[in-house]
Structures are given as structure tokens and as C-alpha cells.
């Protein structure tokens, strides 16, 4: 299954607006990590990830997001997620990451 990643520099809000569509698992998580890392290497700022079109994520994908968050929170920056589908929200809740990411 494929993943589509859109990365936009939202200059007005001083953050990266990321849109994920498709599925994030062990096969596709590396490209998500790569794109997020490249964005942060270009400019360190907050990240907002729109999950409206994300159909599936598992611990591999959550691991990427948590690792990116762990890498920037010391700088006072954050990663936030919006509009997760029911299955994605359930996984965020089980892992306890909903409190810090939603």
C-alpha cells in the first residue's frame, strides 16, 4: 500500500503543515521519517499533521511521529495531529500518545 505525503511551509503560522494519505506501516514509515526530517533540517518549526485521509497506522508509524516529536520538544516545539479516523484515534488512545499529540 502506498503513502502520499504533502509538506507545506505555512509561513503565516510558522509551522510545517503535513498531510498524510494512505497507510503508514513498516514499508512506508521510512519515507514519512525522511520527509519530516528533511523539513526540520530545512527549518525547525512546529509540525501539524493532517490525518484526514490516513486510513491506517501502526506502531511503526507512531514511532516515527513520536521520535520526531522527541527530537524537537527540547526546543519548545511540538508535533500536533488533527482529524484522525476512528481506527487511528483508537491506536493513539491505546498508546497514550493522544494526550500529547491531539
Amino acid at each position, binding site marked *: 500500500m502506498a503513502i502520499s505525503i504533502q509538506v507545506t511551509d505555512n509561513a503565516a503560522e510558522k509551522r510545517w503543515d503535513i498531510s498524510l494519505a494512505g497507510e503508514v*506501516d*513498516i514499508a512506508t514509515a521510512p519515507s514519512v521519517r525522511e520527509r519530516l526530517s528533511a523539513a526540520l533540517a530545512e527549518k525547525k518549526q512546529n509540525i501539524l499533521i493532517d490525518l484526514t485521509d490516513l486510513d491506517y497506522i501502526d*506502531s511503526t508509524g507512531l514511532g516515527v511521529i513520536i521520535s520526531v516529536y522527541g527530537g524537537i520538544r527540547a526546543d519548545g516545539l511540538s508535533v500536533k495531529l488533527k482529524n484522525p479516523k476512528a*481506527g487511528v484515534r483508537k491506536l493513539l488512545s491505546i*498508546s497514550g500518545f493522544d494526550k500529547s499529540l491531539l
Partner: protein
Amino acid sequence: MTDILNMTVPGKPEYVATVRMTAAALAMNAGFDIEAIEDIKVAISEACTNIILHGDEPGTSEELHLEKTKYEVRFEIDGDELSIYVEDHGVGYDPGRYTDPVPGEIKSGGLGIFIVKTLMDEVDIRSQIGAGTYICMKKYRRPASAAV
């Protein structure tokens, strides 16, 4: 009568989606509701992913990695019950040393098994160092009136 489906899967990331979609199709045919199908998809993916990530020692050659991380998946559909068995012959681990992660803690290690245990109705994990790991997970179909 129990319907049985067996797969032998190369330990490559791209085949995890194949196993996941097979599990989803079987669960859908068996009448599981959407939430249960999502649970099954995530649980089977976590089990397969664990093998690929932890089935061999770091630094193993690619050829040996594929041999060590090859795994078998067996689906059994019996009435309201879907049983999934996942078995590998990799390095194994000591289940006694596994601890559930602290919810919300900013680290991802150990999360996969915790998710499997949370999403499935019954989970049995047996592992032996040097011999591999066997996971049996079961999901029971809820009566139609209980489905949301």
C-alpha cells in the same frame, strides 16, 4: 467445520500489507464488524513487523536475515472465532523480560506487543531464545445486536 488458510511470508516490509489485507478480507467474510476488522489488521501487522525488526541479530547478512525472518501465518475461522497463528524461527526473546510500555511515554519500543494484547480477545505468546517466537491471537465476533 474450521476453515484454514496458511501463508509462508518472506520477512520483507512490503509483504506485511499483503498479510494485513488477507486478514481483513477473511474477517470481513466471516462477518466481523468494521472496528473488529481494524483491530485485527493492526494486530497482525504488529506481529509481522516484530519479526522483521527483531527476528535476527543486528548486522546479519541480507540472505540470513531473510531466512531468519521468514514466517508462517495460519488463519482459522470457526464459527464466531478467528484465530491467527504467527510463527517465526528467528532469534526469539525472553518473554519474562518484556514489560508493557508506560502509556504516553515518549518512546516507541515494546509498543507492538502491547497493542496486540489490547486489540485482540486472547493472545498467547511463546518464545525461546534461538528458536523463534509463536503468537496465537483470537478475536470473537460480537452478536449483530451488539455491533455498533
